[in-house]
């Protein structure tokens, strides 16, 4: 998507968010190949929303990459298992050692199930403490090379990067705006749908630290709003190129193993 001009709007392929009540407000989902910021403060379930998309795509037989720069795979897995996801029905491939990447991909290739290739960069960083990074040797190159190499072996539909803030800390960009431009160009060239998790401060209004909001094709904003003696999660699609969007703010709930967007434009019980 994005490189060819479609004949009509129905030819635009979309990736569902698998949030009941949201997809129908964005013409069925995120256009394939888009780079979408999933932005929100801590505790807004950004990682879970992204995992949910990858999980449901894996159930349909598609492969995806989840690049975790901070949260360990064990922590994320325990979290989603606790939410009720049955990870035995998908092929979960864990990469904690860069030298094993190719052999792990060989197993994905022969697998009938859809895979989530979870790359735990936190564990890899602990493993390779002595690697001197400089202008040429960078963690950003690791991320790019992982995506490229995985894609050489198996078709990849979605890539999640968790999180952009961790990438900035890790990569120490000299010219973040320029570097970001090239990262986005790289992701577009890879022709995967990219979900970039962006950490927002609780009181912040910017969806990214630099120009991510301008560069991205879409922004999904999740936030916490105090309501009486409770905190409710809310979700809105701020921007989605090539899509007719209902920008209403929906309440976001996770119930019976499903994300749901409810009560468009209103808080519940009002």
């Amino acid at each position, binding site marked *: 998507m994005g490189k060819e001009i479609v004949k009509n709007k129905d030819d635009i392929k979309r990736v569902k968010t698998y949030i009941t009540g949201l997809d129908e407000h964005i013409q069925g989902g995120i256009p394939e190949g888009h780079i979408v910021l999933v932005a929100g403060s801590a505790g807004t379930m950004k990682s879970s929303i992204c995992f949910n998309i990858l999980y449901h795509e894996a159930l349909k037989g598609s492969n995806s990459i989840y690049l975790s720069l901070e949260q360990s795979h064990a922590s994320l897995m325990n979290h989603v298992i606790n939410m009720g996801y049955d990870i035995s029905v998908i092929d979960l491939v864990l990469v904690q050692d*860069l*030298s094993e*990447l190719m052999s792990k991909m060989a197993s994905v290739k022969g697998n009938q199930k859809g895979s989530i290739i979870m790359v735990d960069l936190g564990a890899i960083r602990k493993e*390779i403490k002595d*690697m001197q*990074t*400089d*202008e*040429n*040797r*960078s*963690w950003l*190159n*690791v991320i*790019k*090379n*992982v995506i*490229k190499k995985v894609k050489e072996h198996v078709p990849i539909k979605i890539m999640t990067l968790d999180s952009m803030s961790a990438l900035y800390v890790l990569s120490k960009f000299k010219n973040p705006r320029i570097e970001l431009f090239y990262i986005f160009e790289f992701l577009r060239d890879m022709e995967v749908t990219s979900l970039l998790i962006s950490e927002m401060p609780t009181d912040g209004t910017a969806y990214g630290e630099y120009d991510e909001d301008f560069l991205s094709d879409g922004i999904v904003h999740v936030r916490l709003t105090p309501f009486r003696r409770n905190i409710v999660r809310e979700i809105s699609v701020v921007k989605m190129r090539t899509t007719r969007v209902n920008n209403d703010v929906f309440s976001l709930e996770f119930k019976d193993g499903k994300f749901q967007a409810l009560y468009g434009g209103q808080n519940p019980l009002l």
Partner: protein
Amino acid sequence: MAKIAFGIPGLVRKKEGGLVSPWSFDTKSSLLSSPLVTDIDQDNNLEVVFGTKGGKIFCLDTYGKMKWEYSIVEKVDPVEAMFLDAESSNSIESSPAIIDLNGDGKKEIIFGSALGILYAISSTGKLLFKYEAKGPIKGAVHVADITGDGKPEIIFGSSDKKIYVLNNQGKLLWRKTFESEVESSPAYILEHKLIVFGDNEGFVIALNQKGEEQWRYKTGGKVIAKPIAGKLGEGEETTIIIGSTDYCIYALSVQGELLWKYGTEGAICSEACIEDINKDGYKEILIGSCDNSVYALNHQGDRLWSYETNFWVVAKPIAADIDDDGNIEIVVGSYDHNIYILDSEGTYLIDHIPGISGVVHQAGHYSDVPTSESGQHRGKRIWQYKTDGIIVGCAYAEDLKHLVVSTKVGKINTIKHTKGER
């Protein structure tokens, strides 16, 4: 505000003919620097030599046929390879140095890579030696006899914040560490025995032959351009000309004092060309800027003319008699894909006629007192040739009257003047 521009016919020499491209060569890899044209193997024929982003050195004959290619092959640990950008880890970012290193009459090719390795290869493309620095080598290597032993030494800077000097066998003579990365190519001023280069902190630094710092001069931005030194007039002292990313071009004495500086409106990334283009007995300075223009300055740093292209001018300008009419032309390669051939004298263009422009621009107001110059000297374009990519470098083969142009899309194009219409 619209300007009225008038050329003055009769003051400008009429030029005939046009530019044609006899051949082009596709390297299938991006190019980042100028080619060099020289006879490397003593066969009395010129060769075109250049490096690519993909880590290859090509040697072509002057008909565009490949004589040989040398590929950088480095074994890298698979895990370390994941930290590298596969497409540019062996990138050759600057023009190679071509010189007879070992006195056998044939020239060797010396260049550095983004992986931080310096290579010397023979005139037939065989590896002679290599030396590993600890950071990418982005600037060109300079070769000069700095020890006075009759053998050339190899001088280069690296992003590991060091300047290295090797002997002609590739053995380290000395290295010196600085506060910042060195991306600028060094120059050597033989008469004063000074190695001069710029660093990423914005300093222009001069070292003696032993690597002892003699002076440093602070500019306002990173210095990645190569310095050039020479006498701008007969009996004059040697002047060092160097551009900075602070948009200025600096003229420094060999003692490191500022003689003058000229401000453009864009970063200066490449070496200046110094040549007496108007036959006044003084050399002029030609410099490209990322404000899209090329500037011709006199030896005192005053603008003679400038010419604006449609994008950055990063390739070093060339002064040469392209059409064999006895007059020098200025060759400018631009990021806008075009080669421009300019008249070395420029031309005077009137922007407005005092009084009339006042009437035109300020209805109801009239002043007969000119408040600004009515025009200025501008570069005059004679010919223009569009290539298929961003122009990153140009060279001139005097014997053949060929321009050899490298473009970022990976093509080497030759361009020459033809008397007839193209």
